[in-house]
């Protein structure tokens, strides 16, 4: 006897998740080949999944209403030794918890989508180019070694300039690496002094909106997937945890100089560095000095939980929407390891392959709003965390040195915290500590 695991397949040419609508079998049921197991709802359709194996159901993953990631285990079936033919999907995939990831991706069926709640089609939606997705016949392993996305001319350009395209962060649509990204990489502009907000975007709640002139006067978009998880988390946090905020503007000369000095070092070849790298180190350092920062309020237990390990959440703006995956044990990482971990987290998020596990058990978070060309933000806490730090753009601003006003790179840092257990004094001390780290990272590293 052997166990065969049925992984949630992509049933619609580029889908990333599906919601369980109804189970048609229970643990212990004997099922035949192609017997309906479960109804799932994707962004495109509600479909019935037939069993790829004959045998006895030994485990069902996810409850009705749970959103499952494509590639996650769905059903485990104990098969007889004789049914060895049907073993396409028995990888050693980790037991992924149901998670609210992805969705809102506009249907990519050939042709036009249809109006929700409208039996007769009266208007057309924008035709959306299919997303890159290897239509993998074998349902296992959706995250493994995904090739970097770019276009042949840009690849060539990168190659001609000796840039490893795999180290470039794409800023184009769906993380596509553009010529500009490569140029920035060549210029070593990992810390752009001036960020630029996009002049226009029709991207909203994980989909492409029609333009102001061609779209319908009113459009209703179902709350699903990433949008739903963001909405749930924000409501839970905003109305469950009393927020307060502190902020500070600090000189970033030391950070800018440090990044400049590290650029091009052989030991850091291929590693993208940015002010976020330094802020991440600073936040972990602040947690070490002010452990109360890395805490959460467990209301049902009436306990405050202090954790001596930082799982550092990094808010990532992905094509599917906002997600906050975390770096486990970030407080144990040195500069290089931190940079590598951030790069990987961002690349995986942009590729849409963030695992549910990567989003669990965040203790402390950073939201880096600098790339959007704003100075700061007052963020809402991810549920179950005590503090979140927002980092604005690093830019030259008037700065008072002695009695003179000079131009210096500065950055605004703000921190929202759960005022049930963290008070203003602790928060202020912690943000000031992070600020000092940014201003003079060398001093902080040697023992500050």
């Amino acid at each position, binding site marked *: 006897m052997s166990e065969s695991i049925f992984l949630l397949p992509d049933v619609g040419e580029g889908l990333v998740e599906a919601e369980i609508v109804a189970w048609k079998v229970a643990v212990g049921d004997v099922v035949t080949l*192609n017997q309906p197991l479960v109804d799932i709802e994707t962004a495109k359709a509600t479909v019935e999944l037939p069993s790829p194996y004959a045998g006895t159901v030994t485990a069902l993953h996810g409850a009705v209403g749970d959103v499952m990631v494509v590639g996650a285990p769905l059903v485990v079936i104990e098969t007889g030794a004789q049914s060895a033919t049907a073993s396409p999907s028995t990888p050693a995939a980790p037991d992924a918890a149901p998670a609210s990831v992805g969705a809102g991706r506009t249907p990519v069926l050939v042709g036009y989508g249809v109006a929700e709640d409208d039996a007769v089609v009266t208007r057309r939606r924008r035709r959306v180019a299919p997303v890159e997705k290897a239509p993998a016949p074998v349902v296992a392993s959706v995250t493994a070694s995904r090739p970097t996305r770019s276009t042949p001319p840009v690849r060539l350009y990168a190659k001609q300039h000796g840039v490893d395209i795999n180290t470039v962060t794409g800023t184009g649509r769906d993380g596509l690496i553009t010529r500009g990204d490569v140029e920035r990489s060549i210029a070593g502009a990992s810390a752009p002094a001036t960020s630029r907000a996009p002049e226009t975007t029709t991207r909203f709640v994980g989909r492409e909106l029609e333009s102001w002139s061609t779209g319908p006067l009113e459009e209703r978009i179902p709350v699903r997937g990433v949008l739903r998880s963001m909405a749930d988390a924000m409501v839970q946090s905003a109305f469950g945890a009393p927020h307060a905020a502190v902020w500070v503007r600090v000189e970033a000369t030391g950070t800018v100089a440090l990044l400049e000095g590290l650029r091009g070092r052989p030991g850091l070849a291929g590693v993208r560095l940015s002010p976020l790298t330094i802020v991440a180190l600073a936040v972990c350092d602040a947690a070490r000095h002010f452990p109360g920062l890395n805490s959460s309020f467990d209301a049902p237990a009436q306990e405050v939980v202090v954790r001596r390990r930082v799982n550092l959440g990094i808010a990532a703006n992905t094509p599917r929407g906002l997600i906050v995956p975390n770096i486990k044990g970030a407080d144990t990482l040195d500069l290089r390891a931190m940079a590598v971990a951030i790069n990987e987290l961002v690349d995986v998020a942009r590729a849409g392959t963030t695992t549910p596990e990567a989003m669990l058990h965040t203790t402390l978070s950073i939201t880096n709003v600098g790339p959007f060309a704003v100075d700061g933000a007052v963020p809402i806490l991810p549920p179950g965390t005590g503090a979140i730090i927002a980092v604005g753009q690093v830019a030259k601003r008037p700065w008072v040195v002695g009695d003179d006003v000079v131009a210096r790179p500065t950055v605004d840092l703000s921190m929202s915290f759960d005022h049930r257990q963290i008070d203003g004094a602790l928060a202020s001390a912690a943000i000031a500590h992070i600020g000092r780290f940014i201003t003079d990272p060398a001093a902080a590293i040697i023992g500050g």
Partner: protein
Amino acid sequence: MISDELVQLLTPEGERIAHPEYASDLGHEEILGLYRDMVIVRRLCNESTSLQRQGQLALWAPLQGQEAAQIGAGRALAPMDFSFPSYREHGVAWTRGVPPRDMLRIFRATTTGGWDPQQYRHSLPMVVLGDQTLHAVGYAMGVQRDGADEAVMTFFGDGASSQGDVLESFVWAASFNAPVVFVLQNNQWAISEPTSLQTKIPLYHRAHGFGFPGVRVDGNDVLAMYEVAKRALDNARAGGGPTLIEAYTYRMGAHTTSDDPTRYRVDAEVEVWRHRDPIERVKALLAREYGVHKATFDEVAAEAEQLALQLREDVLAMDAPDPTMMFDHVYAEAHPLVEAGRREMIELGIGGSH
């Protein structure tokens, strides 16, 4: 020339009816053969849908409801005739002898083809809407120039009938009196767009405007489809030029596995067509007129089941190809730019050694 009558020789209840122009002279064995074809392609189609739902195919375009239109037309083809399908014509491919596993290769994305078109006289599935009609007319013009005793048949849908390519192919076919039969399977829905929004007149009327005959057939009546298609092919071979056959049918399932028809059409409509099932009426005819017993039907079902299991086994055994394979047949001969692309892909570690 324009007849509003639907050519039907067998009612949904399985009773023969007379038509002034067409009559079926197929016998017991031949009708049982058509029945077997339809049962098998439906069963293979169900298995393919399951394989897609299990993550084994990237996509599948089901043919349920259109078995008679495809089997009737496909069986009317002579061995040396050439057919040009769209992407849903698995039934036609079956009549041409294409092994079912080869039909699924492209849907598993293990090839950009699947079979040798010359071997089966059946071209590869065309996904670009309506393109195949131009290929068919061009081929038919070649047949004319060869002086060959062959006809050409091409398949497309009501959605494709709105495409410029299809209308251009009508112009060329008419101008050159090409030996081509256009089989328009009007399954009522172009994905989510109903036929009523695409045309203000019955689609077969369009042929008249181009200068060749059009005929509407009950696409769920395999006997009528066979007779009308056969006469149109004979006419083409005899120099009579093109014919448009509108097979009036219904897509019982989704457009493809990526589609959810419940979002745009009502169950009542599907229910109406369920009573016009193309297989049930032939089964009723066989039982009543030829005394075919349950044992025979069971045999056919068992054969279909066996073929479905074989298909599953064949599909699961298909390995992913080297991605650089896609460069293999872009041009007939090696092309420096294509070769550069292949090399670059290998350097990037995406493809293997080739």
